[in-house]
């Protein structure tokens, strides 16, 4: 039997199906991608000499993680940390309290159209603006200090939490809410007994997650003068005190880990 006849009997060998089915689209994507990468690399200016010199300093920094210096600037670190934590707590509380009514308003199955549009607008604005840009504007308006950071974080929390809460409310089981309504409940009772029990576990989980994010964000607000540990960290970098910077970074990572662990426990208990 010749080879061709054998192939006819056996059929073609199996080939992995491509990820993008349409051939022309696949090629356009590949060619466009390669062209973009070449253009991008061509326009980035990298001063390799400078990088080479910097490698030594980078190594020094990595080494400083093995001997972090908590002691010599402990006063500054402690004040910054407390300020970060205080901002996180206050902003999370206020943000969550405000985002609950806005979340209710942004759910199409609860709110009438005008309220829905206004609340969705607030959510969109809050989500589109970066924390750090909001912080710059608020520092310009309210002056330096943790108040600007507190307001920034509250504002960011509203966008995040309201959107996710509204989506959860829109996805809730309508029959339960209907049953409460049928028993003659007023609007508040309807929300309290028909809607709230359904979305509460997710609301708690999201709130814990947001506390976590707020703490991480509070670490950078100090860069623009909005209070918190960021200012101390920035100063440490500017003065090339890598030991202190390493200590601060270790503290931030540690606190984030603890928060993540706690929120994991709380979420597991609620759900």
């Amino acid at each position: 039997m010749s080879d061709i006849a054998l192939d006819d009997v056996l059929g073609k060998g199996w080939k992995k199906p491509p990820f993008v089915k349409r051939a022309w689209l696949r090629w356009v994507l590949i060619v466009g991608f390669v062209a973009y990468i070449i253009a991008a690399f061509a326009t980035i200016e990298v001063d390799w000499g400078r990088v080479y010199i910097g490698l030594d300093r980078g190594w020094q920094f990595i080494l400083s993680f093995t001997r972090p210096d908590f002691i010599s600037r402990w006063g500054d670190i402690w004040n910054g940390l407390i300020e970060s934590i205080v901002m996180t707590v206050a902003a999370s509380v206020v943000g969550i309290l405000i985002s609950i009514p806005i979340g209710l308003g942004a759910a199409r199955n609860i709110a009438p159209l005008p309220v829905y549009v206004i609340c969705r607008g607030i959510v969109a604005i809050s989500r589109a603006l970066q924390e750090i840009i909001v912080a710059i504007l608020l520092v310009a308006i309210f002056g330096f200090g943790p108040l600007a950071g507190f307001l920034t974080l509250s504002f960011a929390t509203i966008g995040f939490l309201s959107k996710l809460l509204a989506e959860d409310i829109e996805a809730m089981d309508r029959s339960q809410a209907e049953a409460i309504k049928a028993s003659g409940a007023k609007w508040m009772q309807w929300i309290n007994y028909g809607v709230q029990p359904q979305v509460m576990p997710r609301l708690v989980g999201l709130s814990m997650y947001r506390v976590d994010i707020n703490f991480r964000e509070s670490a950078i607000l100090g860069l623009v003068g909005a209070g918190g540990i960021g200012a101390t960290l920035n100063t440490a970098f500017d003065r090339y005190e890598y030991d202190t910077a390493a200590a601060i970074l270790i503290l931030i990572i540690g606190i984030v880990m603890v928060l993540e662990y706690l929120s994991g426990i709380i979420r597991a208990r609620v759900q």
Partner: protein
Amino acid sequence: MPVLKRGDVQVWRRRTTGESMVRWFGWLIGIAVFLFAWQRISGATTWFFVWDAPRIANDIWTRATPPRWEYISQLGRPIWDTLNIATLGTLIALCLAVPVAFLAARNTTPSALFIRPVALLIIVSTRSINSLIWALLLIAIIGPGVFAGVVAIAIRSIGFCAKLLYEAIEEIDHTQVEAITATGASRWQVMAYGIVPQILPAFAGIAVFRWDINIRESTVLGLVGAGGIGLQLSASLNVLAWPQVSLILVVILVAVVISEWVSAKVRGAII
């Protein structure tokens, strides 16, 4: 069911006495913590500036409007840089996140005792430090410029991508892996034909999602000197050129909205 007895009449209650006491104490402690936090913030605030804020805000608004539209001709290059920081950063991060994710997932890690904790540590530490802080650090090491921004975004994204990816790997259908193994495939063939096809949609979704976030983050990296449109923002803020600031903010807002739209479209097409 908790019931309150009043003579012969039984009244329904939502919680037992013990439960309400626990809740009451929880609220008490929560409010005390919040009040303490608020007191610290208010103590660190210059209230005169706050009372003056509406006037200042109004003043800034009149200075900032209308935006200086002709300044847009100088923003082309910074926008291109910002796009490059986000895209190249995401690509590098994905290349590094894939091995980390495979080492961190319970079902693919070579050693759950030694290698998995290291991979998880990489994920937590890169994730909990904001890209602005990474940029600050890298500028001290490799000098200011776009390259520092790319590396900062890349490092920050490793943890995020690897975390989502390893969760996807842990959730794969084990029977498919078993089937590939049963054909006598090698370890790498099992990886390529049993695991990768299952996580590919998740991978593409994560990549686009992170790219969207990175566009946001790269717009402000310039504030610390890491290239992109943030450099122009910071320069304009420093000379109080408010019409330019407002134009840059509008450009950033448009970029964020476009990137979110693209990411939503692509994710909708994949999933």
